[in-house]
């Protein structure tokens, strides 16, 4: 297993190669990317900020829990921080297992737990030049949060 908070673009192929093994018949991959709209507003970019020491600790714990909950999975996860442009990957999770069910389930586990407890925040940049920190607990009137 491996978890990391990174500042450079995430290389999906590297993560896939890391979990590859001849005994793995299934690999699931989650790629979270910067979207161009949020709650009806046009987004031009995104800044991610982490409480780095704690974020790495929590993310490592999440990946370890996923491997313990779904025995036989091998998992790597990188979350990027800093300034990202539209379409860039903010988070990548690769999970390999002998069979697909555990690969899918563990991948879902990691992204949901990451969103629940890893101390990372994002600030959206809008077309009018303004910026706002996103609060996922605030009501989103026009659309559900992904």
């Amino acid at each position, binding site marked *: 297993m491996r978890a990391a908070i990174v500042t450079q673009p995430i290389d999906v192929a590297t993560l896939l190669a890391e979990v590859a093994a001849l005994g793995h018949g299934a690999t699931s991959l989650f790629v979270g990317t910067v979207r161009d709209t949020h709650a009806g507003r046009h987004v031009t970019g995104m800044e991610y900020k982490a409480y780095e020491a704690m974020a790495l600790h929590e993310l490592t714990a999440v990946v370890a829990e996923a491997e313990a909950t779904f025995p036989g999975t091998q998992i790597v996860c990188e979350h990027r921080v800093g300034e990202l442009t539209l379409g860039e990957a903010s988070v990548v999770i690769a999970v390999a297992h002998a069979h697909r069910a555990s690969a899918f389930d563990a991948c879902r586990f990691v992204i949901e737990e990451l969103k629940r407890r890893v101390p990372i925040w994002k600030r959206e940049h809008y077309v009018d030049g303004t910026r706002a*920190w996103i*609060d996922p607990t605030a009501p989103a009137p026009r659309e559900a949060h992904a």
Partner: protein
Amino acid sequence: MRYRSAMPVRVLLFASYAEALGQDEVAIDTPVHATVADVLAHLRTMPGADRLPPQPLVAINARYARIGDAVHAGDEVAVIPPVAGG
């Protein structure tokens, strides 16, 4: 605020909370036997702190903590806005 047996504590603020108080790090003195609640009470005397929620998430030395947990000299207390990773 000064106390007779003051204890230095570093408080970290992030994202919207840092924006609210206009700084991302505050050095404060708390009384010995202080808890996270005492640290928060001190923070609430600062301009912009009215934008902090009544019960924010907190951490001591980069681990989630509870409001009633004890704070020790030299600890790093973080006030954690709702997380938004992914």
